[in-house]
């Protein structure tokens, strides 16, 4: 944004035209951010349904477009064409306003998401604060929709949401403060001349803030769990617990207003992933290149964008995957997790980080030992995880399906190969051969 303004200033037009162009640039960039966020949210809906399908041994939507990727457009069209019902006893103005507040809360936060070097709508110097503050606006919308629906389930959902978000804001902030401490700035992206959080990290994993020291790793987990809880995602989706509250705060909503809530939820998933990538996982940094080299060539900036989107997609996948693995928490368990476990852990990690920033200056031996102490166990856990995955596949004895992408292609599916599905491994432990 600032780059655009400087460019406009350099044109040396009359003040009137300059201001008009600036206003037009603001509108265009805002629309661009909105469209990008909307597309991401839509695609995420499809990804969620596909992953849910595979986890449940189904296929998921694969008919609309290649691999079902256009399913979200079909769903969106359907929702637009549906009737917009407003209950007779509802508080009309608030009922109409609520979904827009939720959407504004999430989508305006996308303004400060650094998709790449210079590819950020507003790289303000309080970016982290802005994102954490503006996403809380969604709570107002949710509470408002719960109240205005004049429905006991909606109200309960709204109240739960308010309690949950107010509680989980605290550990989320504590988690996000650690990289701020390490970087010494609140700016999200930054350039070489005025470094932000991404610019102060590097491309390689040992240069990321997560693996700087064990406390930072802890802080990442605290932030991630709290942020998922803030986004009302399973296992923390108490405000819309469908088995208890019908659909929670959006019970009475239909048509486009419902789609608003829906897209806001999925945009929030991407936002959480993007913020986690930015704060902890090096954002758009290309491995092995200095900032000056990356700024010099647009191709590196595009590669940085790809790297950022890939990292954020991994976190999106993790959030989706968590949803289809874990059952929903009870209300008291939810609050217990926040106040009894995440809050102390978050404080501990913050204090530890503060101490380690003093003790281990960047590049010193202590610093490198700390990085090694974080990276090696993390890698070991990852290896252990994939070993467990392969163990579970071997135990049930199904063939590893490597042509994942070929699924859905006509004529590639062999149901008769399912004959041995569910058979336990043979006594020799070698699994069933087909």
């Amino acid at each position, binding site marked *: 944004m600032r780059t655009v303004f400087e460019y406009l200033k350099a044109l040396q037009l009359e003040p009137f035209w300059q201001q008009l162009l600036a206003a037009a640039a603001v509108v265009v960039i805002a629309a661009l951010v909105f469209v990008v966020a909307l597309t991401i949210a839509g695609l995420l809906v499809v990804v969620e349904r596909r*992953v849910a399908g595979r986890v449940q041994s*189904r296929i998921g939507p694969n008919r609309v477009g290649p691999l079902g990727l256009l399913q979200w457009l079909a769903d969106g069209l359907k929702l637009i064409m549906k009737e917009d019902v407003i209950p007779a006893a509802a508080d009309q103005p608030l009922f109409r306003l609520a979904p827009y507040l939720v959407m504004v809360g999430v989508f305006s936060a996308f303004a400060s998401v650094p998709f790449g070097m210079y590819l950020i709508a507003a790289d303000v110097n309080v970016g982290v604060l802005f994102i954490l503050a503006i996403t809380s606006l969604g709570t107002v919308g949710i509470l408002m929709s719960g109240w205005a629906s004049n429905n006991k389930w909606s109200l309960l959902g709204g109240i739960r949401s308010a309690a949950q978000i107010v509680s989980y804001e605290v550990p989320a902030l504590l988690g996000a403060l650690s990289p701020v401490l390490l970087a010494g700035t609140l700016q999200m992206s930054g350039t070489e001349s005025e470094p932000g959080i991404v610019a102060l990290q590097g491309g390689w994993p040992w240069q990321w803030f997560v693996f700087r020291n064990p406390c930072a790793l802890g802080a990442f987990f605290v932030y991630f769990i709290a942020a998922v809880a803030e986004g009302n995602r399973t296992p923390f989706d108490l405000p819309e617990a469908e088995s208890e509250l019908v659909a929670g705060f959006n019970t009475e909503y239909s048509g486009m207003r419902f789609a608003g809530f829906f897209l806001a939820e999925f945009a929030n998933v991407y936002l959480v992933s993007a913020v986690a990538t930015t704060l902890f996982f090096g954002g758009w940094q290309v491995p092995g290149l200095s900032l000056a080299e990356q700024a010099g060539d647009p191709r590196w900036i595009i590669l940085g964008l790809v790297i950022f989107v890939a990292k954020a997609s991994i976190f999106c996948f993790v959030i989706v995957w968590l949803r289809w693995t874990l059952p929903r928490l009870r209300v008291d368990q939810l609050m217990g997790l926040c106040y009894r476990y995440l809050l102390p852990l978050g404080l501990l990690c913050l204090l530890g980080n503060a101490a380690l920033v003093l003790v281990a200056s960047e590049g010193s031996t202590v610093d490198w030992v700390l990085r090694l102490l974080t990276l090696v166990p993390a890698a070991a856990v990852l290896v252990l995880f994939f070993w467990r995955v392969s163990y579970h596949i071997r135990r049930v004895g*199904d063939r590893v399906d490597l042509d994942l992408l070929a699924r*859905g292609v006509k004529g590639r*599916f062999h149901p008769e190969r399912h004959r041995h599905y569910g058979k336990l491994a043979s006594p020799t432990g070698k699994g069933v051969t087909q």
Partner: protein
Amino acid sequence: MKALDRYLLPVARSLVTIFDGLAVTFSYLFRRPITIQYPDRIEKPVADMLPERSRGILEVDLQICTGCSMCAKTCPIDCIKIEVQSEPTTKQRYLTRFDIDIGKCMFCGLCVEACPTGAIRHSHEFEGTTCDVRRLVLHFVESARPVAKPPKKGEEPASPPLGSIVRPLLGTAFDPYRPPKPVELPRPAAQAAPSETEGGNI
């Protein structure tokens, strides 16, 4: 120490179980889905993939039907109608009607158990949609045919493949309804052929 244990043990337990639970769900991404994409993305008709003893629409192999009407008697909802007429001069019995109303049939399989020769059986066909409810009555007898004698052990005629009898009768969903032609007994001159095997078989 005990208090610390009480605080930390649940954390450790839940971490381990969540870790392994995630591994289980992740492993499913590398397995084949169980879904069969009926009806358009399958390699061969579903009827050929069904288990051997699944109960599809009933079909009758008239080659070995003795016309005993045991099936019609056992049927709890009377969806089978059988008529056998004797030719007055030769006393040869002819099957003139064998109708199964698959709109009523509940696929209980009692008729299949009662049949002494195995003439009535479940095919694996199940796609019997029609636009006319009258077409759900399947007429297996088109022209009068002499009832079969129970075959000797080892001399059973090879039965046609499963479903090959009923599939043409079901047709497609948009076939128009055609009322069945009245079945008439053949004239006495035409019944010479079936009578020649009559001596030895019983």
